[in-house]
C-alpha cells in the first residue's frame, strides 16, 4: 500500500467512525432513540426533512445528548492534538500535556474555586479558574525551565515533575479543607467526566480549540525539522525558541480550556499520536490532523462506554481512559521497541 492510499484510508476510517459513534452515542441512554431519528433530527435542524414526532426525544437530543457528544469531540480532539504537539516540541514520544503541568494546574484552580465557593462567573467560575490555573502553571514551568533564552528538555520535564508535586499537595489541601460536598466535587473533577456538558461550555471551548489546532497545523513542518535536533533545526532556518513558545502557549490554551470543562482525562494525548505514528509515520502534517480525528473518536467512544456500561450510573471517563489506556500504552511501547529497537 502506498503512503497516500494509507493516509486516505486512515482519514476515511477515522471520519466515518467518528460520525457513527456520535450518532450511536446520541441515540443511546436511559431514553433510547432510533439511529434514524437521530439522523433525521440533525437533518431537520440543517433545514432538511421534517421534525421528530416525539418532542421529548427532540429535547433530550438537543439539550442533553448533543452538547455532551460535541464536548466529547472537542475535548478528545484537543487532547490528541496537544499530545502530538508536546511530543514534537520535546522530541520525546512520552511527553504529554500533563507532563508540563497543564492538567494539575487546572485542577488546582478548579479545586480552589470549588472549595472557596467562588461564584463570580456563575457556573463558569470553576472552568474559568481551572483555565487560569493551567495557563499560569504552564507558563511558570516554561519560565523556570529556561536559562539564557534556551530550554533544555530534561530541565523542563523535571520542572514539570516538581510543579506537579506542588499542585497535588495543594489539591490534597483543598480536599482536607473542603466540606463533604466540595470534596465529592473535587474528586469527581479529578476523575474526569463529560456529564456536565452544556451548550455554553461548548461555545466557549470551540474558538480556543480551533485556534490551538490551527496553530498546531501551521507549526507542523517546523516540528518535523525539530525532530532532527534543536541545533539542526536552527541550521535549517527554524527559530527554535519562538517555535517552542508558540507551541507551549497553544497547548496550555487548548488543554486548560478542555480539561476545565471535562476534568482530568489522561492517556488520550499519549496514546492517540502514538497509534497514528505507528500507522502512517511521524510526519506532523499528517500526524496532527489525524490525532485530532482519532482523539475525538477515542473520547466519544469512551464516553459512550462510560454512560452505558452501568445502568443508571455515569462512570467517570478518566477511570475508563486510564484503565484501558495504561495497559494499551505499555503494550504499544513493548511492541514498538521490539520492532524498531527504540521508542517510536
Amino acid at each position, binding site marked *: 500500500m502506498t503512503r497516500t492510499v494509507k493516509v486516505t484510508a486512515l482519514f476515511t476510517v477515522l471520519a466515518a467512525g467518528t460520525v457513527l459513534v456520535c450518532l450511536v452515542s446520541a441515540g443511546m441512554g436511559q431514553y433510547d432513540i432510533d439511529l434514524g431519528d437521530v439522523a433525521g433530527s440533525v437533518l431537520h435542524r440543517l433545514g432538511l426533512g421534517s421534525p421528530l414526532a416525539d418532542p421529548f426525544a427532540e429535547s433530550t437530543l438537543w439539550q442533553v445528548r448533543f452538547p455532551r457528544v460535541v464536548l466529547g469531540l472537542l475535548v478528545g480532539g484537543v487532547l490528541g492534538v496537544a499530545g502530538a504537539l508536546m511530543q514534537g516540541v520535546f522530541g*520525546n514520544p512520552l511527553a504529554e500535556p500533563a507532563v508540563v503541568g497543564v492538567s494539575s494546574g487546572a485542577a488546582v484552580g478548579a479545586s480552589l474555586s470549588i472549595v472557596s465557593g467562588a461564584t463570580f462567573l456563575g457556573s463558569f467560575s470553576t472552568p474559568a479558574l481551572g483555565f487560569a490555573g493551567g495557563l499560569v502553571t504552564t507558563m511558570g514551568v516554561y519560565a523556570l525551565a529556561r536559562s539564557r533564552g534556551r530550554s533544555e528538555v530534561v530541565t523542563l520535564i523535571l520542572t514539570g515533575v516538581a510543579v506537579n508535586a506542588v499542585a497535588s499537595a495543594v489539591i490534597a489541601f483543598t480536599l482536607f479543607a473542603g466540606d463533604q460536598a466540595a470534596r465529592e466535587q473535587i474528586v469527581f473533577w479529578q476523575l474526569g467526566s463529560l456529564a456536565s456538558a452544556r451548550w455554553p461550555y461548548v461555545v466557549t471551548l470551540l474558538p480556543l480549540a480551533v485556534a490551538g489546532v490551527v496553530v498546531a497545523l*501551521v*507549526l507542523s*513542518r517546523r516540528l518535523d525539522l525539530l525532530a532532527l535536533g534543536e541545533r*539542526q533545526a536552527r*541550521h*535549517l*532556518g527554524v527559530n527554535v525558541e519562538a517555535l517552542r513558545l508558540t507551541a507551549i502557549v497553544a497547548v496550555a490554551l487548548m488543554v486548560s480550556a478542555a480539561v476545565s470543562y471535562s476534568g482530568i482525562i489522561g492517556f488520550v494525548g499519549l496514546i492517540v499520536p502514538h497509534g497514528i505514528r505507528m500507522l502512517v509515520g511521524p510526519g506532523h502534517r499528517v500526524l496532527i490532523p489525524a490525532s485530532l480525528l482519532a482523539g475525538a473518536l477515542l473520547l466519544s467512544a469512551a464516553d459512550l462506554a462510560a454512560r452505558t456500561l452501568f445502568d443508571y450510573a455515569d462512570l467517570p471517563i478518566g477511570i475508563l481512559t486510564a484503565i484501558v489506556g495504561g495497559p494499551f500504552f505499555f503494550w504499544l511501547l513493548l511492541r514498538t521497541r521490539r520492532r524498531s529497537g*527504540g521508542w517510536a
Partner: protein
Amino acid sequence: MTVFTRRTPRPVPKTAASAELSDVSFAVSGKSLLRKVSFEVRSGEVLALVGPNGAGKSTALAVLAGDLTPDSGEARIAGEAVPRWSTVDLARLRAVLPQQNAVSFPFTVGDVVRMGRAPWAGTDAEAGDDEVVARALAATGMTEFAGRRLTTLSGGEQARAALSRVLAQDTGVLLLDEPTAALDLRHTEDVLRIASARAGDGNAVLVVLHDLGLAAAHADRVVVLDRGEVVATGPPGEVLTESLLTEVYRHPIEVFAHPRTGKPVVLPHRPAEES
C-alpha cells in the same frame, strides 16, 4: 513573531561562498576554549581543521555556524557578520553537519533528506527539490535506503543519511564536523571526494578531521588547532611536518611522502619489532 513570517527569498551570493573567523575568543565558565582564532575558508577549497581532542575544533565550527556567540572577535559568512543574517538566510548560505545526528522519531531516510530543502520552501529553488534530494541520496549511496526508517539503519548508514540531508540544503558553505567518524574506508573516501567535488563547484568546504593522512590527501589547506589557538595554516605539504605534529599531539609522529602520490602520509611513530 518570526515563526509566522513568510520566508522572503533573498538572492544568495553563491560567488561569495566563504566563511571566516577573525580574532575569535570564546570561554565557558572561565575556561578559554578559543583564543584569537582566525582562519578563512574560501570558495573553491576544502579546508581541513585538525588538532588533538579538546583543541577547540568543534567549538570553532559552532561559532562559525552561529550556534555560539564569541566573547570577542567575529564570525562571518559570505562576508557578512553571522548575527546580521536572519536564521533563514543563514540556512540558505551554510549547511552544518554536527557530530550527533539522532532523530527523535522514526522518519524515513527520504523524509530526513527532504528536510534539508526546508530553507528553500516558498522560493524558486523549491521546484528543484526532487532532483536535489535524488542527487544528495545518490552522492552518499543512500538511494536504495530512501524508504527505510532511520531507526533500522546502522550507525554508518545514519551518518550518511545525515550527510545527504546537509548536501540537499545546497548551500555555498559546508561545515562538516567529523563526517567520517562512523564510516568505513570506502565511504570515508567517498565523503571527501564529495567535499572536493562541492569545492570544485565553487563551494567553500570546512571539514573537521581526526585522520591527518585523510586531511593531507584531500584538503587544499589545513588549519592546525592546539589548545584553542591556531598553530599553523597552509597547504598540507607545508603544515603537516613531523616537528609540528609531534609537538601538538605530544606524541612522536612520522611524516613521509607517499611513494606514488607524493602526498604526506602521517603515522604515529611505532618502534620496530626486534627480531
